[in-house]
């Protein structure tokens, strides 16, 4: 079976602005693909081109092996960033609307049944997202497309939502997710990193991080160490009292020595966020 969705050198231009530049992407059944990038990197536009809501200026966007159409879109469950729910209606009414639209009659799922009679606008965001997801999944779509599915929700709600997503993938659907949240990105089977419209890296989290490393600085006078390293031009992250510096160990040690700061300097693998920053800074010279 071919890919559920595929982008083949897709370019999308809006007037003088190139939102997506020759991007490649493929989503297969049973896997979770994460489209990672900053706001404005072109993730949503690429998504919309796969759904046929935006026409590529060049290249091909394929949905279930053909050009996206109203018919093929019926096999997709889509949750936009704004959720696509009607705030003035109850959970039950929203569910009924979706079922009617897809000409099905389904009982409301257990995960959201408790809140059936409540207005969507009165629910906490985490629950709203679960409702939106349930609605998207209501017609057994082969492909799920989710735009920033867990932005703004509590950690437990996010974990529960991801459990729902993983269950959908295990049941055979392909899932395409966009995110700028590094934490979430680790949940995906495969990552596609976008910067200013271009795909700059892809693979699983480990592959994307590659062999990038940072140094961890631990010392008593961490505050002064921070100021010294900051003044020397490094982008220092403070994790509690441990400092992380994306720079070679010897350099950092030398800077600290010059300022007569005694510290323990160890090399550690970069996390996804640090790797992303390195990729982005490398991709766009600034």
């Amino acid at each position, binding site marked *: 079976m071919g890919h559920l969705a595929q982008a083949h050198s897709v370019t999308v231009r809006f007037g003088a602005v190139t939102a997506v530049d020759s991007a490649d992407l493929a989503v297969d059944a049973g896997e979770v693909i994460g489209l990672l*990038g*900053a*706001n*404005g*990197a072109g993730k949503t536009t690429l998504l919309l081109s796969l759904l046929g809501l935006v026409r590529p200026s060049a290249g091909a966007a394929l949905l279930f092996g053909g050009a996206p159409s109203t018919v093929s879109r019926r096999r997709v469950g889509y949750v936009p960033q704004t959720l696509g729910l009607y705030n003035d209606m109850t959970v039950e009414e929203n569910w009924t609307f979706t079922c009617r639209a897809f000409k099905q009659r389904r009982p409301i799922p257990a995960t959201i049944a408790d809140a059936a009679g409540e207005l969507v606008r009165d629910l*906490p*965001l*985490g629950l709203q997202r679960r409702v939106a997801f349930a609605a998207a999944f209501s017609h057994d779509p082969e492909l799920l497309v989710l735009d920033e599915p867990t*932005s*703004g*929700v*509590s*950690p*437990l*709600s*996010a*974990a*529960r939502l*991801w*459990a729902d997503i*993983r*269950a959908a993938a*295990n049941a055979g659907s392909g899932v395409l997710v966009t995110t*700028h*949240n*590094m*934490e979430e990105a*680790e*949940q995906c089977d495969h990552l596609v990193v976008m910067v200013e419209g271009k795909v700059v890296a892809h693979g699983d989290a480990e592959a994307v991080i590659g062999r990038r490393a940072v140094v961890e600085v631990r010392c008593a006078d961490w*505050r002064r160490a*921070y*100021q010294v390293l*900051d003044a020397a031009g490094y*982008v*220092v*992250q*403070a*994790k*509690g*009292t441990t400092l992380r510096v994306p720079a070679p160990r010897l350099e950092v040690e030398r800077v600290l020595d010059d300022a007569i700061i005694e510290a323990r300097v160890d090399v550690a693998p970069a996390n996804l*966020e640090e790797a*992303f*920053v390195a990729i*982005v*800074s490398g991709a766009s010279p600034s």
Partner: protein
Amino acid sequence: MTWGLFSASVRFGGRAALDGLSLVAARSQVTVLIGGDGAGKSTALRALLGLVPLAGGDVSRPGKTEIGYVPAFGGIYPDLTVAENLAFSGRAFEIASHDLTDRSTQILERIGLDGVEHRLGGHLSGGMQRKLAVALALLHRPRLLVLDEPTTGIDPVSRAQLWRVISGEAASGTAVVVSTTYVNEAQRAHAVTLLDRGHAIVAGSPDEVIAAIPGAVGALRQSTQPSGPDPSWLRGRTWRIWAPDAHLPPEAQAIQPDFNDAVIVAELDHDVMRGR
């Protein structure tokens, strides 16, 4: 004089947005408030700033001229240029004009906004707009800096730059209070408070929060959610399981929980206590 909220309660209509919350804004420290949407983070910060009245408890903060505030969205004038935005803030805080130019240039450089003085606020990208909002809040050298979800929706590069500035402020003595939904950002803090529906369900330094986990946390490498009484959640490809009584099921491997685990356990514990 300690600044912060002391057993503060806030009501909106019939419901309690904050219930007996205590939050100290200590100098030279970054205090982070985490929680999902609707947990009460914005309300807590606004109560600290005096933007919402308290239904109970106390609040203490410095005068208006010593507070810098970055609201959750916006906070800049889209129809004014970067320079005009700074001029407005400067005038409002009565910063002398020569001092203003120096200070503006200094901050813009530090925050990564140099070179765009004459661009309209509305024409800046999301990350740059947020940086401008932070710049406006820092202009008058506040002693208390309050930021409401400063990094939500912002690209990772800008986010890193913002945190650099935030940590830098704390390092030079300012009391910084930040709210966020990103758990990994909370790890940078000196003090963390996890909010859920107006209650603080856990508070302390990140290490203290981890140490405070009751029971034990284990990991299971399987594809379906574990059945059984102990709550479990998905983390990457493995399932984490929490045994409140420290008796993990035999197939689970005991692990050293990290901060993310600690936060989820705290939420689960809170749910259990509320009978959910």
